């Protein structure tokens, strides 16, 4: 008995017992729920499975980034709307980051007016529910946009009215692939120049305008190739049909309102994260950079921001994840996102609610993990190199 007690009192034995005990309890619990679920589903005659995915969807999706018609299958409908969700998230993340950066700069500015504006912006946008902001931008946009019969024309090739911004669609002809190759080659050359310039600056301290040169190259080389080939592109210009403009492509107000709403809302949080990151860098760093003759611009880009980044990345990753997940509100204002398709369109038609919920969960989990992975890679690249 005495032996048993002292054996039990050993820390490692006890912790192992507790841990394995918990594992056993969890596994038993899962089996128990699994058993109940299967029994009940069998009793109710539920047909589970994913066969319905290859059935015809029957409803249109607009906008669709890839080829899609109502004759497409449910799985194609899911892919199209998942792409819509990813596309919307991506655009909003980029714009929110840019706008957030400016908000942070405003809040740190020595200019009283800018500082007050930054403060006011953050307080207004982060304290009003996102859904309300989306409704506001959407219906505000509908109120402001011109009616169809009085569309605003831009040089008779692009038109703006309440149903969207109609722009010409480029239709590629033979030879267009050379232009694409030119873009690729120009990007490669720019990268080489950039690497070379960095190497030279490290050795000699001589700066080289590699960014401007690279940008110029990427724009001009493809243009030159296109000019030589006599521009292998025709434009499908929107024309007014019976009800509205047809042909070309359109930027619909639902998408625009989503981008607006998500950007403005998330920029408030991103701005605060960036401000906090910059303020976390010791003041001495800025003064030291100034004392060796760095310009203000150089101080920020070479000294402050690289150090602030390490503070910024983890919370901004959370913000990006939250943004990506909040795109699920898009259905409320009629933008065809992933959740809209799963919950609003496919579930009512098929009734396969549980399977769809599983796919929906997996879809958003996938998007979130993907964003988290990218950010982790970036975080790894920008961490303090340890010797």
């Amino acid at each position, binding site marked *: 008995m005495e032996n048993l007690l002292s054996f039990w009192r050993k820390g490692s034995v006890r912790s192992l017992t507790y841990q394995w005990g918990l594992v056993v309890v969890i596994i038993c619990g*899962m089996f128990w*729920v*699994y058993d*109940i*679920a*299967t029994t*009940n*589903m069998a*009793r*109710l*005659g*539920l*047909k*589970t*499975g*994913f066969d*319905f*995915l*290859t059935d015809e969807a*029957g*409803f*249109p999706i*607009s906008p669709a980034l890839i080829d899609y018609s*109502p004759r497409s299958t449910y799985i194609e409908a899911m892919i199209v709307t998942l792409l819509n969700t990813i596309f919307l998230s991506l655009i909003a993340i980029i714009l929110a980051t840019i706008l957030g950066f400016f908000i942070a700069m405003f809040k740190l500015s020595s200019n009283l007016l800018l500082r007050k504006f930054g403060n006011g912006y953050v307080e207004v946008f982060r304290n009003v529910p996102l859904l309300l902001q989306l*409704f506001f931008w*959407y*219906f505000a946009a*509908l*109120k402001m946009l011109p009616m169809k019969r009085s569309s605003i024309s831009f040089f008779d090739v692009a038109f703006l009215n*309440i*149903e969207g911004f109609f722009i010409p669609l480029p239709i590629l002809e033979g030879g267009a692939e050379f232009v694409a190759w030119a873009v690729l080659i120009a990007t490669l050359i720019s990268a080489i120049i950039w690497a070379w310039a960095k190497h030279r600056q490290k050795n000699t301290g001589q700066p080289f305008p590699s960014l401007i040169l690279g940008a110029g190259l990427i724009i001009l080389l493809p243009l030159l190739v296109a000019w030589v080939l006599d521009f292998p592109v025709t434009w499908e210009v929107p024309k007014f*049909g*019976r*009800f*509205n403009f*047809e042909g070309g492509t359109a930027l619909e*107000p*639902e998408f625009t309102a989503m981008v607006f709403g998500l950007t403005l809302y998330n920029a408030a949080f991103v701005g605060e994260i960036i401000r906090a990151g910059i303020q976390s860098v010791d003041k001495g760093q800025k003064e030291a950079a100034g004392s060796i003759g760095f310009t203000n611009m150089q101080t920020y880009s070479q000294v402050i921001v690289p150090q602030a980044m390490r503070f910024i990345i983890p919370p901004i990753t959370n913000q990006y994840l939250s943004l990506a997940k909040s795109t699920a509100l898009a*259905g*409320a*204002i*009629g933008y*065809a996102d992933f959740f*809209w398709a799963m*919950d*609003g*369109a496919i*579930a*009512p*038609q098929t*009734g*396969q*609610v*549980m*399977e*769809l*919920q*599983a796919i929906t*969960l*997996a879809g958003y989990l996938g998007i979130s993990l993907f964003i988290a992975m990218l950010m982790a890679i970036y975080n790894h690249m920008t961490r303090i190199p340890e010797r």
Partner: protein
Amino acid sequence: MRFLNSKIGRLTVMSAAIASLGIMATAAKADRLADVKKAGILHCGVVPGVPGYAFPNKAGKMVGFDVDLCRAIAAAVLGDADKIKTTKMKLPVAFNAMKAGTVDVVTHRFTWTFARDVGQGLDFTRVMVFDGQGFMVRKSLGVKSAKELDGATFCMSAGATTQGNVSDYFRKNGMKFKQVTFGSMGEAQKAYDAKRCDAFCTDKFGLGARRLAMTNPDEHMILPETISNEPISPMVGHGDQVWKDIVVWTFNALIAAEEFGITSKNVDKMRSSAKNPFVQRILGTTGKFGAKIGLGKDWAYNAIKAVGNYGEMWEKHLGKDSRLNMPRGKNVLHTKGGLLISPPFR
């Protein structure tokens, strides 16, 4: 697909089942009638706020056609129409609730379709409203028929058969269209009102009410075409035939009551003095129909007394005595050329 149907795929479904059913699964029952009687309350899933069908009145109590269907069942089973608890449910929630058994009946405006009925763990009971989808347009558009809507943009709401119906109709007629589908009917209606779309689309019995809610109702008109057939039916969980019989025959009794002229006002007099054997059997003065489905002999009497016959319910919530003022359309008795018919009480 093969992978998804494999064991691992099924396991994924099970995890979702665990997430959605969870502990509730243990509550799924085999003898619903006994459970309802024991609980003394009937749990109903209803549409989240459609005037006329299920909508809070000034006192905050849910009233409407769908709520009365629920009250009728409560009156038949428990003898008291007020012993109900209504829960607002969108379709995915309602379907899961049926599977999990957290509600006894769903009296929602759900269209009876093959895919919803088969293999989903639920049963549609009987069609209580014959509806069909239609279009509303602005008079200024100069359109007289849905056939002239080639290339138009439609506002509608998700979560229904609406999208597929419009798509089918336009495909059938070789026409193109664009649609903006909103998460809720309210937003779809507001967007159409703001001229985002050329046409607004929903079930015809909804269109009338929606037109009245526009900024200027006189600017709009409802096109004559009915592009789909929407039999609206309450649902019960699959596998409890006794409970399904109770629900179906309570609804049948409401329709039969209209056929035989039994109303909430004259039901007492009819019970004591009616000579018609059908009326006697419905109201329990002869035969033992109540006992055969596990209820008291007053089951149908209680239901009719509480909510009236089908016609009374319609006029009170959807027809002449309501703000909606909708004509009954096909929802009149077969004896008057409609589609309502109750199997005989024999």
